[in-house]
């Protein structure tokens, strides 16, 4: 029995997340097949076929999959499911939307946000906003897992292209209909895949001041993040939110500016390799986990940092 890996479409290049997910699939079973949804994903498919270890790529070409709703996406997975012992997807909004639907139809449990594969049936995942790590054993024959991709290394090695099989079946569209995607356009790296992140919080005081975060980020080639406080105050749209209810990131460098470090926020970034905190309150909880801390006025420190890095 093999593992089936659902890769998130619309990755212009197969970035870290997809390749890390395949790595998780290979840890479960050497016979790893990949499923990609969407008629426009040829470039992505061709890249996946070259990743060492992938045995087959399914390409579901129905145009409804260009913006896959959970109903049709889960039908497509279920059509393949009988041959697989493991069905995995990223624990992004894409994967989390679809996967529990698949698990319920298969009458099996799901483990969400797996960060560690202990054995073929035992997995670790964070609970309570990452303040505890739970080890669970799956008693079902089929294991359905959403994977925290930042917890697995991407595969660098390549192979000659594996077979690509098109799925041309049309799945019924008798549920919801996709209407519109209001994308946030940015030239900066995607938050969950960025190697460096500069994040701003309530300490920035207003949306205008957030521009210094952008300036520092651009200087470092970093993505921009934010705390929930900054999002709620309207400094920046919510897709930039890092935390338990936003995105979980684990970059090499995370610079937290004007962020106190509430439990909710720490859950989203405490696995970054190096954390830098800049805050005027020396008792801010962020300093307890920061690799390096600077206590002082961010409106003096950040411009000085920008100046020194320019």
């Amino acid at each position, binding site marked *: 029995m093999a593992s089936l890996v659902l890769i998130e479409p619309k990755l212009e290049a197969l970035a870290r997340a997809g390749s890390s997910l395949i790595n998780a699939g290979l840890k479960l079973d050497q016979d790893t097949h990949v499923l990609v949804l969407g008629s426009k994903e040829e470039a992505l498919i061709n890249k996946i076929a070259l990743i060492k270890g992938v045995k087959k790529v399914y390409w579901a070409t129905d145009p409804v999959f260009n913006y896959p709703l959970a109903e049709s996406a889960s039908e497509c997975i279920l059509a393949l499911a009988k041959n697989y012992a493991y069905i995995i997807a990223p624990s992004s909004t894409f994967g989390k*939307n679809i996967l529990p639907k698949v698990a319920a139809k298969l009458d*099996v*449990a*799901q483990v969400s946000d797996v960060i560690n594969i202990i054995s073929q049936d035992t997995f670790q995942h*964070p609970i309570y906003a990452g303040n505890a790590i739970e080890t669970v054993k799956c008693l079902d024959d089929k294991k359905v897992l959403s994977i925290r991709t930042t917890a697995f290394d991407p595969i660098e090695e390549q192979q000659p292209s594996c077979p690509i099989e098109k799925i041309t079946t049309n799945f019924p569209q008798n549920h919801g209909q996709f209407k519109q995607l209001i994308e946030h356009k940015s030239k900066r790296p995607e938050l969950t895949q960025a190697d460096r992140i500069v994040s701003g919080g309530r300490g920035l005081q207003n949306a205008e001041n957030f521009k210094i975060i952008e300036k520092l980020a651009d200087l470092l080639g970093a993505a921009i993040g934010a705390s929930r406080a900054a999002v709620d105050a309207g400094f920046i749209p919510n897709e930039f939110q890092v935390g338990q209810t936003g995105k979980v990131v684990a970059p090499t460098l995370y610079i937290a500016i004007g962020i106190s470090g509430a439990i909710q926020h720490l859950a989203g970034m405490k696995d970054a390799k190096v954390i830098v905190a800049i805050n005027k309150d020396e008792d801010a909880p962020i300093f307890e986990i920061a690799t390096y801390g*600077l206590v002082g006025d961010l409106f003096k420190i950040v411009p000085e940092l920008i100046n020194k890095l320019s």
Partner: protein
Amino acid sequence: MKVLVPVKRVIDPYVKIRVNQDLSGVQTEQVKMAMNPFDEIALEEAIRLKEKKLVDEIIIISIGESKSQETLRHGLALGADRAILIDTENKPNLCSLNIAKILQKIVQDESIEFVLMGKQAIDGDNNQTPQMLASLLDWPQATYASLLKINGKKLEITREVDAGLEVINADFPIVISVDLRLNTPRYASLPNIMQAKNKPLAIKKLAFLGLSLKEHIQIVKVEPPAQRKGGEILNSVDELVHKLKSVDKII
């Protein structure tokens, strides 16, 4: 139309949790408990829809130990019309699939066409039950809703996704899971808290629902996460630049 709002009693989100010495779980004795924040948002939305006369009755349901009655009374005080407690007695750790199966039974028994619930509980962080419920019922789902527009039997839901906002159309019956930014929940007023004591709260024992629930997941252990090494406070921007450039070599 009736709306069913499932609510969960969880450790208050502002409490720093402690893992039991024997790694069996997280300490919940004498810890402040609260309604799961996402469920509060779902309930608030239901109340607003009732105020706009788009729903007639709000039923809240909780599945868990007897103490979940407190959470249900809180929900009644906020504006729910009646409550159901499914008392799980000695089955504390039901997985999301089994919770979804219990909800499915109640949806069918109560002829519900609309389920509005939190996107995830802040204890297990699973983010599964709404999707599983929709799947079992074979209803459409709209997860992570940040805006709802209802026009008769038609719905337009704006969903928070990683790429931005996705707008979908769907019809009733439906399961909707809500995100933080859908609304800001109200507080319960004292008269409403008093009134809530007289609202109906039905207690049903899980065993009497006639469901055959299988164990799917075993919890092996619960541990505290690895602690990060204590932070180093630097004195100047120069020192920081030196550390990042020369020590960690990351910029």
